[in-house]
């Protein structure tokens, strides 16, 4: 059965029919941040916009310190990656390395803008009618507006769209499954702006040339399905359906979501487009609508500020570059026992060392955890091979075995045990009775593998260079030797010698003849003295 047919089945059933291996049912803790309507926080004075926001290279700054920038003006460029824009109008105060809200925790180049409070927009360039515009112009618009996957992977949207266009895509899947606990920004967006999401979905569908849109949401998102369905009906568009899937972490992972919707697995090392599908986050779809219809670049996003360490958890529509401390202040500040600040959810989120960290395209949640939430760290015990990790692994790996290979530096067996297939969801970590930081080992293993691959590549190149040089030298040597032997042979060859002697005698004779001839000729011409 084709993947298209399987999607149709799921749509006809109106719900998921399949499931994925393992996973966890976690307490979702989402309600606490859904009590208040989404608002914009007060305008911050200083905005820090990192230039490294997408999967890809660091963008080059297009502005200098002291420059006046307008809201929405492009300030960073990176071909073929997405652009970076100024979230406010104001003055560029610094361009320097600051904490840039990246999982690595590293500092990187950031453009620091002091807002002038005028909120003066740059001239926007919307596409007048996306129904008639060419797909290429739409893709360029996405790139220029800095669109990237807002679910957390921040893969440039235009690149995904271009790749999808080149392949035969039948279904666009909008991922509204926020499977991590605490995070509720996508749910709030779907509740508050369903029309924009549907519009973005239609634009993306046109770009991809796909026939069908499936919006996947969690089964406990009460009003969301109704809101989206009503918005879809209002547009009179066919083939846009909303499917509820059960809340099992990590169902929001695109590979798991596709498995739940179709029962098919994305091939190892492949992409969903291999199955004729493209996944986009719902927030990305809304941003696409803004970018195409209004020409607005991606300068703000929905973000959840939540956790027991926050006085009044809620969702904001925050400008990129706003510091977390500013958002927390707008939430009424921290609770006394706050102990850790995490970007993202508690399973896959990364901790930050300071709340000066800015909101970037990938930040979907700021989670302030208390001492009680994180509990005191338990000592690591040896693995007792209980197999809980394998039971919950959505990639059907054997984490306990894989971990052993990495610990012992056995890289080839680690690859056999599926190191690259690990999605780092943290399920194994969570259930491990020995408290082994499995995911950290797997991340280390992956980075080590990358390093080894680079090293191998470099050494392969060096070897090739060396071998080429050797071959070249050998060739020269051989040629020289051949020449020598030819020479020696020629010298030794008697007949040849005699020929040579004869030839030289002849030459000498000829010369003499010519000399005589010339003298004769001279005499014929006559010597004026003789006359």
């Amino acid at each position, binding site marked *: 059965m084709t993947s298209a047919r399987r999607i149709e089945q799921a749509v006809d059933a109106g719900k998921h029919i399949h499931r994925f291996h393992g996973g966890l049912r*976690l307490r979702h803790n989402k309600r606490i941040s859904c009590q208040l309507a989404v608002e914009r926080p007060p305008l911050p004075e200083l905005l820090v916009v990192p230039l490294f926001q997408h999967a890809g290279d660091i963008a080059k700054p297009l502005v200098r310190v002291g420059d006046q920038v307008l809201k929405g003006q492009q300030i960073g460029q990176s071909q073929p990656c997405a652009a970076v824009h100024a979230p406010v109008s104001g003055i560029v105060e610094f361009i320097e390395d600051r904490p840039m809200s990246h999982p690595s*925790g590293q500092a990187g180049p950031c453009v620091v803008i002091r807002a002038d409070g005028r909120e003066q927009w740059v001239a926007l360039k919307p596409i007048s009618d996306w129904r008639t515009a060419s797909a290429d112009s739409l893709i360029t618009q996405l790139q220029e507006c800095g669109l990237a996957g807002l679910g957390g992977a921040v893969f440039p949207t235009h690149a995904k769209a271009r790749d999808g266009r080149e392949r035969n895509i039948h279904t666009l899947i909008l991922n509204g499954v926020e499977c991590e*606990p605490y995070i509720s920004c996508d749910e709030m967006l779907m509740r508050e702006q369903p029309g924009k999401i549907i519009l973005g979905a239609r634009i993306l569908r046109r770009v991809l040339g796909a026939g069908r849109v499936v919006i996947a949401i969690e089964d406990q998102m009460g009003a969301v399905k109704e809101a989206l369905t009503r918005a879809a009906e209002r547009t009179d568009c066919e083939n846009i359906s909303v499917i509820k899937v059960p809340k099992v972490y990590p169902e929001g992972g695109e*590979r798991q979501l596709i*498995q739940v919707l179709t029962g098919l*697995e*994305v*091939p*190892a090392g*492949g992409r969903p487009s291999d199955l004729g599908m493209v996944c986009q986050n719902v927030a990305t779809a809304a941003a696409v609508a803004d970018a195409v219809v209004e020409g607005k670049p991606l300068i703000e996003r929905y973000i959840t500020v939540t956790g027991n360490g926050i006085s009044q958890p809620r969702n904001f529509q925050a400008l990129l570059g706003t510091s977390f*401390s500013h958002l927390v202040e707008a939430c009424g500040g*921290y609770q006394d026992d706050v*102990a*850790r*600040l*995490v970007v993202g959810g*508690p*399973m*896959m*989120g*990364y*901790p*930050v*060392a*300071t*709340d*000066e960290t800015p909101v970037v395209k990938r930040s979907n949640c700021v*989670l302030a955890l208390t001492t009680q*939430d*994180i*509990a005191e*760290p*338990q*000592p690591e*015990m*040896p*693995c*007792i*091979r*209980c*197999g*809980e990790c*394998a039971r919950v692994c*959505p*990639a*059907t*790996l*054997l984490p306990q*075995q894989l971990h052993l290979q990495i610990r012992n530096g056995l890289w080839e067996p680690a690859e*056999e045990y*599926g190191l690259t*297939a690990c999605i780092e969801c*943290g399920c194994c970590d*969570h*259930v491990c*009775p*020995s*408290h082994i*930081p499995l*995911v950290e080992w797997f991340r280390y293993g992956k980075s080590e593998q990358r390093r080894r691959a680079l090293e191998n590549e470099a050494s392969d190149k060096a070897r090739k260079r060396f071998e080429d040089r050797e071959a070249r030298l050998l060739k020269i040597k051989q040629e020289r030797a051949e020449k020598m032997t030819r020479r020696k042979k020629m010298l030794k060859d008697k007949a040849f010698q005699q020929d040579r002697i004869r030839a030289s005698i002849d030459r000498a004779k000829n010369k003499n003849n010519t000399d005589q001839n010339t003298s004769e000729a001279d005499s014929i011409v006559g010597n004026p003295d003789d006359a």
Partner: protein
Amino acid sequence: MTRKFQTSGAPHMPPQARVATVMLQVLLALLPGVLAYSWFFGPGILIQIILATAFALLFEAIMLRLRGRPLKPFINDYSAVVTAVLFALCIPPLAPWWISCIAMLFAIGFAKHLYGGLGQNVFNPAMVAYVVVLISFPQAMTAWLPPLALAEHGLGLADSLVIIFTGEVPLAGGWDAVTQATPLDTIKTGVESGLLMSDIRHSPIFGIFGGLGWEWIACCFMSGGFFLLYRRVISWQVPLAVIGSVILLSLPFWLIDPDSNPFPLQHIFSGAIMLAAFFIATDPVSGCVSNRGRLIFGAGVGIITLVIRRWGGYPDGVAFAVLLMNMAAPLIDRYTRPRMYGE
């Protein structure tokens, strides 16, 4: 105002389980079987459990000290206690005290710590200990008791303590008055001397489907096993494979020749099959990791046990079967790796 935070790797949630919790659940699941055991055979088993546990913890502490490891997270992970209790359940309830001492030295010192401690042992420590003392001290290891219902003299706590610590039986008739062959012994010697199974089973030491008393102890172990299955401490593959293979393999023998082969339920409810199926062969450290591997592992344990019971020199072969399959586990693991997502 900025604020600094400590960072630490994801996930940022307290872990769900501890090794100690796993082990405690195993101990809890063994409790009904232990109680049934002492109900049918007297308080000897309780003394053996206490003795073995004390020696196990002692050797655990000594070995941790020798290996320069901290006592704290290891001595109270209850893994040594599980080993001790499983061992105590395998030996005759009135075995002398030094049996436990020697056995635990081998279980904890050799089978566990010399291989690298918790999680590193290739062999099931309790079974290593049992086999060492079974082979070294066959006489002490075959002095089994009749169920209290059949005993001439019911042995109380004081009598049991005297016997275990002095080796002297404070009753007229000495050892012969208190010991009796187990049902499996009776079957083995009976069949070898040419008796019919129906005649053998007329002996009062047999119950409804297994040995008198033993069958109910096995039922209690089974119910404890179901508790572990429910709590997901063990997976269903190993118990199913052990019990299933014993039934499937003994059934044709029994159908062809019911006079010299016990019927399948007799096999399951006597000896250590039930204990092994739910508590010994399910030991994750020395077993297989994948589900298919566990099925093969369990079936191997069942088949080898039956082969030893039928043709071997010992009335029961569970311990040997488990150790042999422990040896095969890494190989089985190698060939039963589950298919990965997208592979």
